[in-house]
């Protein structure tokens, strides 16, 4: 499997070449176009109970698509995300990554999609009780609204929780207030994420939720 990201950073879309026998796992509705020789199958996102949990607690789709190249020749597929923005590939070599709801775009079959307990503080922050965990071997594609920044963390770092799209397994994420109770709300920052540990954090420069918060009072 080979991939090329076109149109970054505003309108990233990935051109993936599937060799004979290859399968690509993609988020529901992520296919923009493809060679007709590819076959698509809907699969429950991690078995029935896994899919159910992910749907209701992880805010992910119940079904995901598997695209398989059953023909004898290479075939291409164009994969995209819903929001206009960048897409990054994360190469997993046995490690794991947490991905925020909505940021998953696609992955190779060596990657496992799981959910893990995120804790009550995450739920209070509106980020859900569970979080999506990808691990194994292969490429995972994550998307963001706007540009994507990856930041190496060693120690403590503070991020607005609506701008995080993914972080490595060894990073601990706690949701809290950016300052005291007054400064947090007066500054408009509200709840922020405190990340701690050593690894990588992926950030998006915009947030669909914040766009909705901007539009809602004007409707």
């Amino acid at each position: 499997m080979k991939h090329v990201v076109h149109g970054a950073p505003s309108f990233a879309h990935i051109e993936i070449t599937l060799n004979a026998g290859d399968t690509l796992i993609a988020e529901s509705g992520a296919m923009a176009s493809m060679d007709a020789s590819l076959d698509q199958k809907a699969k429950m996102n991690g078995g029935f109970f896994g899919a159910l949990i992910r749907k209701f607690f992880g805010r992910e789709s119940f079904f995901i698509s598997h695209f398989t190249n059953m023909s004898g020749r290479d075939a291409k597929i164009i994969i995209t995300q819903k929001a206009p923005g960048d897409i990054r590939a994360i190469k997993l070599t046995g490690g794991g990554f947490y991905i925020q709801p909505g940021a998953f775009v696609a992955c190779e079959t060596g990657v496992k999609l799981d959910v893990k307990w995120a804790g009550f503080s995450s739920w209070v922050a509106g980020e859900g009780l569970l979080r999506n965990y990808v691990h194994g071997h292969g490429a995972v594609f994550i998307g963001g609204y706007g540009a994507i920044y990856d930041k190496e963390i060693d120690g403590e770092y503070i991020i607005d929780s609506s701008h995080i799209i993914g972080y490595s397994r060894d990073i601990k994420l706690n949701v809290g207030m950016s300052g005291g109770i007054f400064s947090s709300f007066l500054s408009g920052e509200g709840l922020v994420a405190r990340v701690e540990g050593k690894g990588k954090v992926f950030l998006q420069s915009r947030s669909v939720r914040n766009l909705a918060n901007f539009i809602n009072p004007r409707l």
Partner: protein
Amino acid sequence: MQIDILAQPANTITKITFAQNEEITAEGGSMVAMSGGLDVQTTTHKRGKRGIGRAVKRAFAGENIFLNHYKAERDGAHLYIAPNLSGDIMTHELQGGSLIVQATSFLAHEASVDMDVSWQGFKNMLSSEGLFWLKMSGTGKVLINSFGAIYPVAVDGEYIVDTGHIVAFDEGLNFSLSKAGKSWMSSILGGEGIVCRFKGKGTVWCQSHSPSGFGNALGRLLDPIVEHQQ
């Protein structure tokens, strides 16, 4: 006529500079700015043709039923036009053949181009995107816009495009509404729903993003509109 496409690809806008007596027809509401020396007529049809039937068809196609015709009274008059969504604009030069344009991707055409609603049959009604098509024929330039980037695909055989990602295609291509894989159930459950299967030889232009895809992602976060009782 000189067409300059500026600020690609995210915030694209088109500047059209006219020679005297040149004409262009643009989608209603697309004008951003214009110089003096342009005569503007708003009609529901092509200038000099009867066209209420065509306007009704365009209204069904979810298009603005009004078209603006700009005619230059002098050399150097100019016009800026842009679509509503962020994305790219491309020009396509027709040389006697026909191009089928997905209705929301139409921006403008030169006066020598003829536009009609292309009724591709009842199959259109089945698509959740409300796909409608404008058939451009004749000779001259057509301006087309997209949500996101535009990528052309040279089809030789069969190719599948999600209904929300089609911008335009050569008339020589046949298309049918189809499923993404072997099973309808998989296509619908997998969120691909109904897709377009193109057959033959020709080019299909796709957009990197789907307006309804982003619309749904944003829409579910918006407050429902409360109807106030009188």
